[in-house]
C-alpha cells in the first residue's frame, strides 16, 4: 500500500472527487427521498481548503451541483451542517435572526482522546489495535440503546478517519428533534462524569436502570480480552491501585493484600468481582449492595460522548467519505455485522486508492474507451478497496428508501379504508 503524504493531496483530491467519491448514494442520502421540498438545497456544507481556509454556509441546488463544486474546488475536508430555514449560501441576504437551523441528523462523536485516563497503550491522537476495542464497545453500547430504547432505525456509523467514530441518526422524526431533546439523549446515554479532578467517574446506586444493566452486559463481553488481558489493568501495583481507588474502603484493603498473591489481572479481577457480588447477594439483609465491579467496567470502557456536538442543531460534523487530511484515510461507514473485525489501519487511504486505480486502469484501459463518464465512474470505485464501503452507504440509503415506501404504503392503505 502506498504510504500517504499530505503534500500529495492537491494531486490526489481531484482524482478522488472525480473517480472515487460516491456522489450518487451520497446525494440520495441527503435528499431524503425528496419528500420535503428543497431539503437538499437548504443543507449547509462547509469545506476546508488548503492551508485551513474554511468555507462555511455552502449550499447547492442539487446533488449534481454539489458534485460539480467538489470537483472544482477539491476540498481537503467536507463537513455537513444543518438544514436551514433559508438557503445557507444566501444567509447574508436574510433578515437578521431569521436564518435558523431547523433540522439535522442526531449525531454522536466519540473520540479516543477522551479515554486517555483509562488506556495505557497510547495517548492523545494515537490509536492501536488494543485500544480500538473501546470504539467497538462504544458503538455496541450506543447502538443498542438507540435501537432498543430510543426506537430509532436508521443509524449510519462511520470511522472518522483517524481516532474515533461518528454516528448519524437519520430517522425523519429524529432529524426534527429540539436541542433539548438531543441534549437529554446524550445525558441518558452518559454514565462517566467528571474531569481530571474526579477520580471516581461512575457512581451507581439502586435501582439500577435497565439502560445501565444492559450496557454492563455489552461491556462484559469485551472486558476480559480488552481490559484484563489487553490493557492489563490489574497487572502491576501501580495500575491496580488506580482501579482500587474506585472501590469502597472496606473492600480496598483486603484486596490490596490479596492481589500480590494472584498470578494476573484475570485472577485479580475474579477476586474483586467475587467479593463485590457477595455484597449484592447479601443485600436486603442490611448490607449495602456494592456495584464497584460494574463501576470499574464502565469507567474503563463505557462510551464518552461529546454533548456539544450532539446538542446543537447547527453543529457541523465531518462528512462520511471525506478524506482525513492528516492520515489520508477515507471516512468510511462501519459494518455493524462485522464490527469486531474492523481494523482502522486497513481503511484505504486516498493514496492507496489512487494507486489501485492506476493499476486497474492500466489493465482495463481498452474496454473503458467509448463509455460515458458517469458509467465509468461507477466502475472506477468498484475496482478499488473503497467498493465495500460504498456498498454499505448504498445499503443504508436503500434501507431508508424501503422504509419510506413502506410508510407511504401504510398511509395509502389507511386512506383506502374510506
Amino acid at each position, binding site marked *: 500500500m502506498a504510504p500517504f503524504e499530505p503534500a500529495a493531496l492537491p494531486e490526489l483530491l481531484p482524482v478522488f472527487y472525480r473517480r472515487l467519491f460516491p456522489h450518487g448514494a451520497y446525494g440520495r442520502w441527503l435528499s431524503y427521498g425528496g419528500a420535503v421540498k428543497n431539503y437538499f438545497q437548504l443543507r449547509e456544507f462547509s469545506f476546508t481548503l488548503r492551508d485551513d481556509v474554511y468555507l462555511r454556509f455552502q449550499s447547492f441546488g442539487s446533488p449534481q451541483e454539489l458534485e460539480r463544486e467538489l470537483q472544482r474546488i477539491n476540498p481537503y475536508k467536507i463537513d455537513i451542517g444543518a438544514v436551514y430555514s433559508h438557503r445557507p449560501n444566501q444567509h447574508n441576504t436574510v433578515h437578521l435572526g*431569521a436564518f435558523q437551523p431547523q433540522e439535522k441528523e442526531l449525531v454522536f462523536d466519540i473520540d479516543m482522546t477522551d479515554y486517555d485516563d483509562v488506556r495505557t497503550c497510547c495517548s492523545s491522537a494515537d490509536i492501536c489495535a488494543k485500544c480500538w476495542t473501546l470504539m467497538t464497545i462504544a458503538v455496541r453500547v450506543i447502538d443498542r440503546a438507540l435501537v432498543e430504547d430510543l*426506537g430509532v432505525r436508521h443509524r449510519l456509523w462511520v470511522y472518522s478517519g483517524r481516532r474515533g467514530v461518528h454516528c448519524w441518526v437519520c430517522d425523519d422524526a429524529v432529524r426534527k428533534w429540539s436541542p433539548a*431533546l438531543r441534549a*437529554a439523549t446524550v445525558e441518558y446515554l452518559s454514565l462517566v462524569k467528571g474531569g481530571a479532578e474526579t477520580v471516581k467517574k461512575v457512581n451507581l446506586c439502586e435501582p439500577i436502570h435497565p439502560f445501565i444493566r444492559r450496557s454492563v452486559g455489552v461491556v462484559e463481553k469485551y472486558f476480559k480480552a480488552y481490559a484484563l488481558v489487553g490493557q492489563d489493568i490489574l497487572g502491576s501495583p501501580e495500575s491496580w491501585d488506580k482501579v482500587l481507588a474506585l472501590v469502597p474502603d472496606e473492600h480496598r484493603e483486603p484486596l490490596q493484600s490479596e492481589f500480590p498473591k494472584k498470578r494476573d489481572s484475570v485472577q485479580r479481577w475474579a477476586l474483586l468481582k467475587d467479593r463485590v457480588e457477595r455484597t449484592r447477594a447479601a443485600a436486603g439483609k442490611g448490607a449495602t449492595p456494592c456495584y464497584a465491579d460494574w463501576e470499574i467496567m464502565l469507567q474503563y470502557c463505557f462510551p464518552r460522548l461529546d454533548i456539544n456536538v450532539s446538542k446543537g442543531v447547527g453543529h457541523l460534523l465531518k462528512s462520511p467519505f471525506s478524506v482525513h487530511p492528516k492520515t489520508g484515510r477515507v471516512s468510511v461507514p462501519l459494518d455493524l455485522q462485522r464490527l469486531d473485525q474492523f481494523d482502522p489501519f486497513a481503511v484505504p487511504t486516498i493514496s492507496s486508492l489512487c494507486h489501485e486505480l492506476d493499476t486497474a486502469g492500466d489493465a482495463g484501459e481498452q474496454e473503458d474507451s467509448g463509455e460515458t463518464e458517469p458509467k465509468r465512474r461507477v466502475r472506477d470505485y468498484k475496482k478499488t478497496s473503497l467498493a465495500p464501503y460504498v456498498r454499505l452507504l448504498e445499503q443504508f440509503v436503500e434501507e431508508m428508501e424501503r422504509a419510506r415506501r413502506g410508510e407511504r404504503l401504510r398511509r395509502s392503505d389507511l386512506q383506502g379504508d374510506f
Partner: protein
Amino acid sequence: MGPAVALRVREIDELWWHYPGHQTARRDGSGRGWPCAGSWGAGPGAGRPAGEMQFSSAQARGKHLWLSGDRRQLYPHSLQFYLEPPTEDISLSEFESLAIDRLKLLKTVESLGVSYVRNSDQYNSKLASELRKLKFPYKALADDDYEARRKDHISHFILRLAYCQSEELRRWFLQQEMDLFRYRFSQLTDNLMQKFMEHVDLSFEAISEDLKNELASELSTSTPGFTMSKVKEQMFYKVGLADAVDLFRARRVFIKDGFAYVPFKDIVAIVLNNYRAKLSKALALTARSLPSIQSDERLQPLLNHLSHSYIGPDYSVQKSTGKISLEQIDALSVKSFPLCMRQLHKALRDNHHLRHGGRMQYGLFLKGIGLTLEQALEFWKKEFIRGKVDADKFDKGYAYSIRHNYGKEGKRTDYTPYSCMKIIMSNPPSQGDYHGCPFRHSDPELLKQKLQSYKIPPSGITQILDLVKGMHYQLACQKYFELTHDVDDIGFSLNHPNQYFTESQKLLSGGREPKKEVSNSGNTQQKNNSQESMNSNSTPTSSNTTTDAELEGLEAYFTED
C-alpha cells in the same frame, strides 16, 4: 367614563385583536375589515394621534360570535393553558383592576412558595383562600364560574404583556404562573385531570395490565420509589420522549422503543413541562412583538406601571409628615431602614455625597417616612457641605432637585417613593453608586460580609443568600426584616422600602405582637420549609437551564418571518 378613558379603551380592544406575537388572534377567521391590522406591528404608525385610529365598531365583531354562545364553551375547564388571547371588549378600569388582582395573586404565590412547602396543607389552604378572595377560579368542580374563568384568562394575558419585557420579568412571571398552575392542576380530581389533558391534547395511552405485568420488573428498576407492588397499583402511560424529556434525561423512567413509560404521579410533571414550554415560547414571541407596543406612548405607561407596580398603599402620602426629627435618622437607619436605605444613609454619612440615583432613591424614601421639604433641604445641605460642595453650590445645584422631588419645581409632579420592584428592575447602580437593591445588586460575598457585620446569625445569612440565589430579592429582604426584628413571620408581603419602615416602626412601638417564646421550633420549621421550597425550585437544574434556553433560545428559533 370620560372621553379620554373611552379612547384608551378602544386602543386596548385593538391590542386584543392584534395580540403581539400571536398569529391566530382573529377567531372568526373572516379576515374582513381590519383597517389597522398592521398598526401594532409597525413602529412608524404607532406615534399618530389615537383619534385617527380607524376600525370597525368594537361591538360588531367578536362579541356576537363569542358571548352570545354558550359561555361554558368558552372556558370548558377551570384552568387553562392560555393558548388564545381574549377577543372581547373590555373597559379600561376593568383592564387595570384585572391586572392588579392577578399581580396580587402572583405575589401571594411567590411569598407562599418561600414560606411553605409547596402542596403542603398550609400552602394549599392559603392559596385557595387567596384565589377565593380575589375571585379567581378556586374550586375545580364549580362549573358556574364563568366570571372567574374569564378573569383568569384576561388577567393572565395582560400580565403577559407587562411581564415579557425583560428576561428577569419573564422569569419571575413564568415561575409564579407555573406554581399557580401546579397548585390548580393538583386540585383537580383524576377525572378532571384526564379531561383537561385531553382538552390540551396531552392525552396519553395507559398501558394494558398485560403489558404492565410483562414489564413490571423493568418499570420497577427504572422508576425511583416504585417497588414491584407499587408498580402493580399504579397506572403507567406511554409518552413520547419529547413530552417526558426531564424524566428521560435523568433516567427516571423506563424507556423502550422511543417511548417513556410514565407512572401517573409523574404525568403532572409532564403537563407542567408542556405548559412551561408553551408559556415560555409565548412570552418570547410576545416580547419580540413588543417593541412596537413600547414605542406606542399611549400603551407603554400602562404596561410599565404594571410591571413596576407594587400592591399596597401609596407611600407618597404620609400621615406622619413632620413627625421625624433629623437627629433621629441615624438611629432609625439602623433599626428601621431596609438594607438599601441603610446602605445609602451610611454612604451619605461616609462620603458626604450621593450621586443622582442614590439621591432620588433615598430622598424620596425620606420624604415617604415623613421628612418635610424644609427638613430635607437642611438634611442634605448639612451633609453635602461637609464634603466638596459649598453652601452656594448646594443651593444652586442640589436644592432644585430636592424641591423637584417634593413637586415644587418642574412639572410639579409629587414624586412617589420607589417600590422594591422599581429599585430591583430599573436603573442598576454603576461605579460609585450606592442605590439599587443590595440583595439584587451586591456581590453575594460582599452581601454576606455586610450581613455578618450587622450581626445576622450565620443560619439567617445562609437563608438570605439562598433566596438571593433564587432571585427572590424581596423575600430575602423580608427575611432580613424577620431576623433584625426577631419575628417568625412578618405576616405581610414586602414590596416597598417605606412599607418596611412603617411595619418596623409599628413593631418596635408595640403595635405588633413580638416574637413568642416557642419561636425556636418555629424558626427551624420555617428554615426547613424555605429550604425545601427553594430546592423544589431548583431541583432539576438542567430543566431550569432549559427554561432559560427556551426563553432566550426559542425566540431565536421562531424568528422566521
